[in-house]
């Protein structure tokens, strides 16, 4: 084993340039990952300085399509609010209009309460919705209206004043009902929860367990985070290109190495080395190139990325990038380099194993 390792770790002028090229490829990948990760870190650092509203969680990507089972609510720690929201049709003052119907339920110390509206059948119209009805009908909203929800029309519901307080993120054009009204119309649809609102972020393990996704109520934050995620996706393409490049570089270098060392391989085989041992030497040499390239390239990439971030303000460039220790970037790059090197070395090492002792093998020298 020891001779194999020592043979595998030889660096020649043939392989030295390959190791450098792999190192440079790894530096590009690590540097790019560090910069994009740093931009994401910078955005997170910025978002703690602005009012992003409560933390909202939904299932999937669309609030209206979310159906959270109310039975999971007891597993949410601390105080939180539950939002049920649907689109209905309100008929009032002789006009018919599509409205957003919301029911807000507070969970304090494990007890759910709905503060408004007071009556079980009441429909509270917010100020903007009242103004819209007045504009369309020419008169203030009547005391009763018909509301169609989940295909069922509820006739003669009492229309009451706007809510005394409003969630900061809610527009003035919503209608509010009690959660009980929604259950009574359709227990499944009306009982399901569309969003959970918490004052502090929920743990990622709980989110996975409950199948919840965060919904950024401050769009600029979501826009920036989403944009960085798109850039990260583009970097995955770069990672693929670099993996192919490393694989081909290793294949090319190891093919030449096997070709140039045919006589040495014959000697090894004559001395009793098995084909597997010979293949192992060259596969290990390919891996050595990958490791060397990954280590040197990662270090170079980190230095270049940090230098770019540090010197950018000196030349008047905006700098929202706050890099953090790039463990993930290094692990990903090392993994790609090793995998690509291992794959690139398979064919040359197999050729090496096929060199027969004393005969004309690969390269024929």
């Amino acid at each position, binding site marked *: 084993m020891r*001779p194999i390792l*020592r043979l595998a*770790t*030889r660096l*020649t*002028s043939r392989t030295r*340039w390959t190791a*450098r*090229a792999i190192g*440079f*490829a790894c530096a*590009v990948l690590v540097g*790019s990952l560090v*910069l994009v990760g740093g931009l994401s870190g910078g955005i997170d650092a*910025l978002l703690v*300085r*602005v*009012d*992003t*509203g*409560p933390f909202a969680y939904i299932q999937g*990507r*669309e*609030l*209206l399509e979310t159906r959270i089972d109310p039975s999971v609510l007891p597993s949410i720690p601390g105080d939180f609010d539950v939002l049920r*929201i649907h*689109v209905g049709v309100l008929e009032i003052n002789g006009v018919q209009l*599509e409205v*957003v119907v919301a029911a807000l339920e507070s969970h304090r110390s494990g007890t759910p309460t709905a503060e408004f509206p007071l009556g079980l059948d009441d429909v509270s119209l917010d100020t903007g919705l009242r103004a*819209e009805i007045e504009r369309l009908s020419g008169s203030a909203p009547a005391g009763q209206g018909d509301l169609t929800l989940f295909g069922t029309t509820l006739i003669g519901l009492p229309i009451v004043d706007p809510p005394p307080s409003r969630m900061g*993120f*809610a*527009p003035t054009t919503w209608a509010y009902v009690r959660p009980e009204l929604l259950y009574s119309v359709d227990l499944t649809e009306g009982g399901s929860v569309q969003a959970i609102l918490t004052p502090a972020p929920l743990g990622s393990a709980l989110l996975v367990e409950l199948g919840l*996704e965060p*919904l950024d*109520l*401050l*769009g*600029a934050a*979501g*826009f*920036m985070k*989403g*944009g960085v995620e*798109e*850039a990260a996706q*583009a970097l995955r*393409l770069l990672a693929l*290109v670099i993996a192919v*490049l490393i694989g081909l*570089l290793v294949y*090319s*270098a190891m093919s030449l190495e096997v070709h140039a060392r045919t006589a040495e391989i014959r*000697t090894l085989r004559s*001395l009793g080395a098995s084909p597997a041992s010979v293949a192992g030497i060259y596969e290990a040499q390919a891996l050595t190139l990958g490791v060397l390239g990954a280590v040197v390239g990662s270090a170079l990439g980190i230095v270049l990325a940090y230098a*770019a971030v540090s010197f950018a303000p000196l030349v008047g*460039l*905006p*700098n*929202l990038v706050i890099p953090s220790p790039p463990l993930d970037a290094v692990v990903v790059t090392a993994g790609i380099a090793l995998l690509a090197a291992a794959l690139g070395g398979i064919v040359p090492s197999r050729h090496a194993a096929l060199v027969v002792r004393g005969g004309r093998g690969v390269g024929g020298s």
Partner: protein
Amino acid sequence: MLLCAIVLGASWPILAALPELPTQVLTGGVYVLTQGTAGTNQITEALAAALVSQSWAEVVSPEILAFGTLRGEPVLARGVEPVAFAQVEGGRWLPGEPASDRWAIAGTRLAGRLGLVTGDRVTLVGSAIPRIEIARIEGTFVTDTSVTDELLVDLGLGRSLTGLDRGVYHVIRVRTVDPQALLAFLETSGASVHVSGPGLPRADINSGPPPDPRVVNLLFRSGFAGLPPDYLSLALPQATNSVSVVALGLMGFVALLVAAGIHSVQTRAFEDHRANVGVLRTLGAGNGWIRMRMLRESLPTALGAAIVGAGIGLVFAALIARGQLVLFGHAVPVAIDLTSFVLVVAAILVSSLVSALVLIGAALRERSMELLTERAEYEPPQSLEAILRG
């Protein structure tokens, strides 16, 4: 070398297209007015109305920009006035111009990307304020500009998403063939605005230049509340510059990577031909002649690899672009043209020829006998003999 050309051909056109993105999104090839440094709320209904009445103003489109997310993806929701907007963009509404008060219409590429169809109800979130709005998709907007990646909403919904006051806009876009008349009118109007557009990097009218502190620093210091009134015009050049720096940096990285790859391959290939250089010199060939011969021998291979590789790379770039390479909610406008092709081929050729000259130069500095002698590879202590002897 072929692979290097493919990498360069696939990456350069995409990276070169990136810096155009922010300007294209905000100005769209017409003149754009944004808030200046003096006073607040200068981009108003009154200013838009005054512009409309000018004979040189072909189209005036007041707009509100709400950066947000839609179905988890970053999307720009643009509050617009339908008639003026369709004219300034040269697009058309499907099935027709929105008639209701509250509407949301998806650009065709956005609709395709997110699977939005007419009648869908979508959740929109606020831009600079926490907000939830539910909107119904009323149709699509057909255009070949970057607006095809955006969601268009009525101005009321735009205000709700941004917290902007009634009668105020983020930008007014003006199409005119007489930008000097536009600037002169704005001077007399008293409005404090920045103007930019085709052939006009930025004109500060009744306004100082954007303040020195950068948007990012202001955001870090005091959040959104610390932003100056003209943050939009301040952010545009900074966003453009930042994207340019990142794109140019990545182009440089890729170019160096490709150059290193080409040199690596040529170094190994040249190792087998070092003795030939010694033979030629022994036979009396001059250094200049050997250099020229090296270039002549390298050129066909490099040219072939560059042409084929650049062609394949550009096809990849086109496929990537067609597969919608989206950054910050907008498809990157990749230009695949003869110039891109020639640039990539030239870059590969130059890399290859410079590498060849470096290699031959190093060889020519050695004596002929050294070149002719089978060069013993430097064997480290791990050489076969040393290892077998223990």
